[in-house]
């Protein structure tokens, strides 16, 4: 007699091949980023507005960070909000448009060939973002039960769009100046819309779902997450308006304080989740994440310091801006993504290869799908690399920069090897079972 179909919500998960593209492209971008940083270490000093640094920053923020967020959101939104993705075809198309745009943009900045070429590449990136935002909003339109994660994600895509539009306008302005004010004023807005509005908002929303799930945390107070959402949005919107209108300085200070208060509330929420966890030991993915959140604290502190402190000489300020960038992009965002990829990629591959076999034949545990020891070593190397970089910038030692980037490259190679191992495991594991 046939079994009756399971009365569970099913078919929400998007196709593995679509999501896999985003994850593989992101891991490859991280490797390219680390190679690029190592190769051009001697260019990384002084002012942040310089061709190679712009190219590498966009490989980091678009090819690595945003690429992984796209893949993760396509995977998570249907599961977390219990709706089917509006269009997989659009998600597939978006991947190719975005990849072409990021490659064009990175090349354009690297060679500093501003003009039509750069604007066209930025236009492709913006088009991909519009497709993404449309796809996400059309998916979210079907949601009946909202939660704080959904709210964070919904808001983040609005900021993504604003980041893309401002970036596109800036790319035109580089070749055909039309903005009446200083380009760098707008660059500051573009960077913070992207980093706080898009990346931080996504990280907060996704963390509020995943961190308690991975740590088996239950019955923790959730009020700080709501304060984090309110403070961060009010602070960011206020800061943007003040930067745009160049209004009263005390008002800008007030809004920056709100952003810092929002980040503090979020970190408090994470601490409460951590305190209420049932799974006492942190696995290697969560160790990466814990280190990343520590860097988040320092990045926020550095951002606050930049907002309020007055620097005696311009060189010291530029060095501090670079420290801020390393803390935020490498210490916080990159370590967090590496850690969460150790959690999410094995799950995706497991779900695709072993889901239907569970209960019928032996299947691997997620932690068996990559080298835990390798990941531990990689974490130490990446941490060491970031600390060496911070010291090299602080003391102005170019040679030490090379050491720091070399360590990051080594760490990214181990990480790429480990992620490739996860993708290979399905076949290998199947072969082993066939031979036994």
């Amino acid at each position: 007699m046939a079994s009756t179909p399971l009365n569970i919500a099913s078919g929400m998960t998007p196709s593995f091949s679509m999501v896999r593209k985003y994850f593989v492209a992101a891991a490859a971008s991280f490797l390219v980023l680390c190679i690029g940083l190592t190769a051009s270490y001697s260019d990384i000093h002084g002012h942040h507005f310089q061709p190679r640094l712009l190219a590498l920053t966009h490989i980091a923020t678009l090819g690595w960070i945003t690429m992984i967020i796209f893949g993760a959101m396509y995977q998570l939104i249907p599961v977390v909000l219990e709706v089917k993705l509006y269009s997989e075809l659009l998600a597939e198309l978006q991947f190719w448009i975005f990849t072409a745009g990021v490659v064009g943009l990175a090349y354009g900045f690297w060679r500093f060939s501003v003009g039509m070429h750069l604007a066209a590449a930025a236009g492709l990136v913006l088009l991909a973002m519009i497709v993404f935002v449309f796809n996400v909003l059309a998916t979210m339109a079907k949601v009946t039960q909202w939660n704080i994660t959904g709210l964070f994600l919904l808001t983040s895509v609005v900021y993504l769009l604003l980041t893309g539009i401002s970036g596109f306008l800036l790319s035109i302005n580089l070749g055909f100046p039309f903005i009446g004010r200083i380009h760098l004023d707008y660059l500051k807005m573009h960077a913070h819309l992207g980093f706080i509005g898009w990346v931080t908002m996504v990280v907060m929303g996704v963390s509020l779902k995943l961190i308690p799930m991975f740590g088996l945390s239950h019955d923790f107070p959730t009020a700080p997450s709501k304060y984090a959402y309110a403070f961060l949005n009010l602070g960011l919107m206020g800061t943007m308006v003040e930067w745009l209108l160049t209004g009263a300085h005390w008002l800008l200070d007030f809004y920056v304080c709100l952003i810092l208060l929002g980040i503090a509330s979020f970190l408090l929420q994470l601490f409460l989740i951590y305190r209420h966890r049932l799974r006492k030991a942190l696995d290697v993915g969560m160790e990466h994440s814990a280190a990343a959140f520590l860097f988040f604290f320092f990045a926020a502190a550095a951002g606050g310091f930049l907002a309020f402190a007055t620097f005696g000489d311009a060189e010291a300020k530029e060095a501090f801006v670079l420290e801020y960038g390393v803390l935020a992009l490498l210490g916080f965002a990159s370590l967090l993504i590496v850690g969460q990829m150790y959690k999410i990629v094995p799950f995706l591959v497991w779900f695709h290869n072993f889901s239907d076999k569970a209960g019928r034949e032996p299947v691997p545990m997620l932690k068996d799908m990559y080298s835990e020891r390798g990941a531990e070593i990689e974490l130490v190397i990446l941490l060491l690399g970031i600390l060496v970089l911070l010291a090299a910038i602080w003391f102005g030692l170019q040679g030490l920069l090379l050491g720091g980037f070399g360590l990051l490259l080594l760490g990214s190679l181990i990480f790429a090897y480990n992620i490739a191992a996860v993708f290979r495991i399905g076949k290998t594991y199947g072969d082993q079972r066939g031979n036994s």
Partner: protein
Amino acid sequence: MATKEEILEALKTVVDPELGINVVDLGLIYGVEVDDKSVRVTMTLTTHGCPLHESMAAAVQNVIRMVELTKEIHVDLVWEPAWNPTLMTDNARRLLGW
């Protein structure tokens, strides 16, 4: 015909791939009803919206099919009452590092 106890024993082979703990020790199985025609399992997961929900319920169905060849199998996934740590066995607590 498999008894309720035999089905529960079989379900101990269904392991959460993230935690490495079986669904019985985790306290995810709320009930097993066996009659002449069918087996009905009521279960939950540790987190609402857990992406493993389809796999875990399917694995439970697969395992029961191996000990009970002919009956209808129903797996009801419920979120109420919500799972809580008191439902875990001592073995699960030990594996979580308590």
